[in-house]
């Protein structure tokens, strides 16, 4: 379309002014993070799928730069470079362009994102409910009606796994694959089968470790096959994984009841207020019950914010595409002509600031609104 008309631009600006007024009234300080960002920071965090959608270029010195594909990471970098005490509670909001190669209908390659980030929040459930409330209020201030809020909660899934007897490394791998339904299912199947029935091209290497010191045996195999050690992976790294695979062989396969519990958990879905009973039917183990308790507090916290959780939708496998997040994930959709369209999303991402250089882990929760899409669905 080669740009916006005067009236389109004015309508977008009016809408976004209404959104930002909600954020600023709530005490969020409006900042303007850089549009041009070092590419590595996004690409190392997000991997190749985001890279494929990011505008990357080089400066004359050969450094890789990019146009920001999102504002959360730039806001985190802003925070870390502007304060000596990044753990102190800080509330930011922002409005500005982000850039991505389009991958779907109604997704322009440059779009304006409005959002907020709340770093170092203390009462986590209350802060999360507040962020959802602000996102809803901002959308309503922009004139939107009939929005639908969907939630997921990684805390429940983690608690369910924590209560199940299995090696910690299995839990780690299941958590890691939570985001990828197909890979997750394959992994679950692998753990449910006796490990010695699985043979591959490295089974011989695992056999060789039996009764041996893992590192010594691995060094010996490398020397015996005259293999050069290349890449940063050390003999110890390689030996440790071989040793894990050997240990897996003597583990009890994951009990059928646990496989069923995990699978039924991932199918849990419904109105937020009707989820507790579904969850309790799956497992009554202590940490999981604790997570359910926290979930019920979440419902109360949403009510405290004047929201109606009966109209919110919970889905256990929700947010499987959003690897960023560490706890709550939410998305706000609007019924559009053909299918529901997502106009806002957010959640908790407690590891991101540390990942970007903070010395300690700092809690963080935030949300972002896709303002162009919002204007499009309302007109």
């Amino acid at each position, binding site marked *: 379309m080669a740009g916006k008309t005067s009236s389109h631009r004015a309508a977008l600006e009016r809408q976004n002014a209404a959104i930002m007024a909600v954020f600023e009234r709530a005490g969020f300080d409006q900042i303007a993070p850089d549009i041009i960002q070092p590419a590595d920071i996004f690409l190392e965090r997000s991997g190749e799928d985001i890279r494929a959608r990011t505008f990357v270029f080089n400066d004359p010195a050969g450094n890789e730069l990019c146009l920001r594909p999102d504002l959360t990471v730039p806001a985190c970098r802003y925070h870390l470079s502007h304060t000596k005490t990044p753990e102190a509670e800080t509330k930011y909001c922002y409005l500005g362009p982000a850039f991505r190669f389009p991958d779907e209908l109604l997704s322009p390659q440059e779009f304006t994102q409005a959002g907020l980030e709340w770093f170092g929040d203390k009462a986590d459930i209350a802060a999360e409910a507040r962020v959802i409330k602000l996102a809803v209020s901002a959308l309503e201030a922009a004139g939107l009606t009939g929005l639908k809020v969907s939630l997921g909660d990684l805390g429940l899934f983690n608690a369910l796994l924590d209560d199940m007897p299995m090696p910690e490394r299995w839990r780690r791998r299941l958590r890691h694959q939570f985001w990828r339904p197909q890979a997750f299912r394959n992994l679950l199947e692998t753990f449910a089968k006796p490990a010695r029935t699985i043979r591959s091209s490295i089974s011989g290497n695992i056999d060789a470790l039996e009764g041996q010191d893992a590192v010594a045996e691995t060094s010996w195999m490398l020397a015996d096959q005259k*293999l050069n*050690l290349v890449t*940063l992976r050390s003999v110890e790294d390689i030996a440790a994984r*071989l040793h894990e695979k050997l240990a897996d062989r003597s583990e009890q396969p994951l009990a059928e009841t646990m496989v069923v519990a995990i699978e039924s958990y991932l199918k849990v879905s419904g109105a937020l207020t009707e989820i507790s009973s579904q969850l309790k039917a799956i497992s009554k183990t202590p940490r999981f019950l604790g997570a359910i308790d926290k979930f019920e507090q979440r419902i109360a916290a949403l009510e405290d914010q004047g929201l109606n959780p009966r109209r919110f939708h919970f889905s256990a496998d929700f947010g499987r595409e959003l690897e960023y997040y560490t706890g709550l994930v939410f998305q706000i959709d609007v019924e559009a002509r053909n299918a529901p369209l997502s106009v806002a999303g957010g959640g908790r991402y407690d590891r991101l600031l540390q990942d970007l250089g903070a010395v300690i882990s700092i809690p963080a929760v935030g949300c972002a609104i896709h303002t162009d899409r919002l204007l499009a669905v309302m007109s």
Partner: protein
Amino acid sequence: MTLLTIAIPSKGRLMEQANELFERAGLKIERYGTDRGYRGRLIGTDNIEVAFLSASEIAAQLRDGKIDAGITGEDLLRETIAPGNDVADVALRLNFGPADVVVAVPECWLDVAVMADLDDVAEQFYATHGRRLRVATKYLNLTRRFFAEKGITGYRIVESLGATEGAPATGTAELIVDITTSGATLKANQLRILDDGLILASCAVFAVNKHSAQLENMRNLMGLLGRAVVA
């Protein structure tokens, strides 16, 4: 009758085998002007011109709809034309120029057999070194698609325009996606194909523009070539 342009490789073994195919089909390629000319025509058919281009240029021109058909490697075709973009597709597999596009890791990675291992290693590598595994390849799209299918995201592509198999040893990448016929080059560089690391079993193909495939002289040509393919 519409004048059609088909492209055939301008050099190398692929060119020789393409010429043999046309001979078996009873067709002769006549170059305009000197032997070095880049255009010619196909004697024995109606209104078909020949362009001599590099195999990768043929794939690009098929994507852009600039030629009606061409002989190129399936690897280049799949790399250049995204699935779902049906501007041109394989009409005939020609059963020459076989080559596999594969994922290969350093042989010293004694603990890595399958793509799922790679995902696990990628996660630990990031935790230890704070950066992603790097994959050296010239097949950016094939790699992205295959890794996405396998649910692997924790990696980066380093574009490589030659001697890809040397990347792990020289430290510019940890693993590679490359083409192999006998596996000898991989072996010589101490690289091993993952058990489930076959991305594409490629061979030379005759690919045709979707609209051109309906035309009578193209249908005749496809018939002649089809009968000349050696099983």
